């Protein structure tokens, strides 16, 4: 019992420390990446503090953190003090708590401690192992982030912050639906809500869900990008042209909590994309697929998972500079008119295959996953063509009727 507790505590500390460090260094990666895309070099000077060693700018996160902590933390007089304090805490805690069920590897062999220490089975690399409703937990806790955003805007007691909070709330709530629909297909196919079971299914079958359900993968990836409020979906912040949004009034360490939470959301989104659709820790030929692992394989699985996550994060960062931001009506049109219907199509295809697929596959002489892959690919192609042909996100802004001016006779215009 005690050993379980100790192991859990060690995992929590490792996960949290790793996450905070990762978030800090991802800020640096983001800045370097942005610089490179813009033909600049980016922050490359800060190295070991108080020395002249530069280390490619690896000391920058320390400097950024110190700067944020020592910055004046100004609380405007007109805010709702309690809510103003609670809002960044909410979003930060919610963003960190999601990681309780997200595996950051497969399992570790139990032989690293002597037998008498009470560790009798392989240690799962997840802070809260064996939660059967893992996916639901992720969704439930992840959704609390909306409260942080809306609450922050509301507590600021400032019209622009309030509108920014509502804008973000609308976006986050809208894109939660396609996110859920994307997950539903995976859950139907796996038959479990456990994240490790979803990875195991992909590892054993050898076919990743992104191939089996390409439509679901695309929808989930786009919706996850929007949920993490990354460009081209960064309407909540819109730092180039609008007032900052819900965190306009925040400064100092409270603002840092918001910003770190944003990065944690991106990390969560990348973890979920990798776990649900890109095979988690599985890679053909090198990681195996079973539960019984040796040390090298166990570490390799962690490395593969983290490499995939980093790849997805780098793609997010590249996407930021590749495509212009959506207008708000386009954002809503994409969410409601494109992603949700397509998500439903994906669920129907997967559900239909789960019901009739095995029989059909046996009759046609193909394997079950191959059949789903073919059906999913056909659905993707068809849906893409339908969307391209109907163009539901297009909005015509030109005047469609005559405009009445004060000096014009209304009768004259309508006759």
């Amino acid at each position, binding site marked *: 019992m005690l050993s379980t507790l100790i192991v859990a505590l060690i995992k929590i500390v490792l996960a949290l420390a790793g996450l905070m460090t990762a978030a800090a260094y991802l800020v640096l990666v983001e800045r370097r990446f942005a610089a*490179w*895309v813009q033909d600049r*070099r980016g922050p490359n000077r800060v190295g070991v503090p108080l020395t002249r060693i530069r280390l490619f700018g690896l000391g920058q996160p320390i400097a950024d953190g110190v700067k944020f902590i020592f910055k004046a933390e100004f609380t405007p007089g007109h805010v709702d003090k309690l809510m103003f304090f609670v809002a960044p805490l909410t979003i930060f805690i919610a963003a960190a708590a999601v990681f309780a069920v997200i595996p950051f590897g497969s399992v570790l062999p139990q032989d690293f401690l002597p037998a008498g220490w009470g560790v009798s089975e392989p240690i799962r690399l997840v802070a809260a192992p064996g939660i059967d409703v893992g996916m639901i937990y992720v969704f439930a806790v992840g959704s609390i982030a909306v409260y942080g955003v809306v609450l922050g805007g509301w507590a600021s007691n400032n019209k622009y912050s309030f509108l920014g909070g509502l804008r973000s709330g609308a976006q986050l709530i809208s894109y939660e639906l396609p996110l859920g629909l994307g997950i539903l297909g995976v859950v139907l196919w796996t038959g479990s809500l456990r994240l490790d079971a979803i990875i195991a299914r992909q590892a054993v079958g050898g076919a990743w869900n992104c191939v089996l359900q390409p439509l679901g993968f695309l929808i989930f990836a786009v919706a996850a990008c929007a949920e993490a409020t990354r460009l081209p979906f960064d309407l909540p912040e819109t730092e180039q042209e609008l007032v900052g949004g819900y965190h306009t009034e925040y400064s100092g360490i409270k603002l840092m909590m918001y910003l770190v939470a944003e990065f944690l959301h991106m990390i969560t989104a990348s973890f979920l994309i990798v776990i649900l659709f890109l095979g988690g820790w599985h890679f053909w030929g090198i990681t195996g697929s079973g539960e019984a692992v040796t040390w090298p394989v166990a570490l390799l699985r962690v490395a593969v998972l983290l490499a995939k996550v980093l790849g997805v994060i780098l793609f997010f960062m590249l996407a930021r500079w590749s495509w212009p931001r959506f207008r708000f009506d386009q954002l809503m049109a994409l969410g409601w008119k494109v992603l949700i219907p397509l998500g439903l199509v994906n669920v129907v295809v997967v559900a239909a295959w789960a019901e009739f697929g095995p029989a059909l596959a046996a009759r046609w002489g193909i394997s079950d996953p191959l059949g789903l892959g073919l059906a999913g690919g056909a659905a993707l192609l068809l849906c893409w063509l339908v969307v*391209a*042909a109907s*163009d539901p996100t297009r909005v015509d802004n030109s*005047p469609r009727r005559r*405009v009445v001016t004060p000096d014009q006779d209304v009768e004259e215009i309508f006759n």
Partner: protein
Amino acid sequence: MHPQDDRIRWIKSPKLGVAGRSYLPLFVQGLTTTLRHLLGRKLTVESPEERHEIPDPLIYRGVHRLNRDAQGRIKCVACFLCATACPAHCIDIVAAESPWPDREKYPQSFTIDELRCIFCGMCEEACPVDAIELTSLYDLSGKSREEMIFDKEKLLSVYDQTKDAEPMRSARA
């Protein structure tokens, strides 16, 4: 302006084909552009270890200098043309009777507020005796506002510093 005004031209957005509306070509286009820049040559230099390559230092508009003549005297004749031409009013000259026989006046003090200066080069254009010129030194800095007000000695020392690399205009071919 009224929306029905004849002078307004309503431009229809270009009609995309199915390929364009499928978003795929545009997606790839955006991604290749960023990837090209990501891996491409960086345009910034590592200042201060590396310096910007200034294409032609003779026409660059950096810090001012006051030129000296062949005897090492200040060339300025305190005619006030530069101070008059200056749109930022950053030049302040106090004229005095010249101790030398070849001119009537010389500047007893000549100060330029480098913080007010907009580096337009009008002083250089206005000067009839090629006494004031702009050099290619671009990274001037100081610890106080007072330090950034350059007096005659400072401006002459800029000349001493740059005369070899950038000969004054009247000395050029």
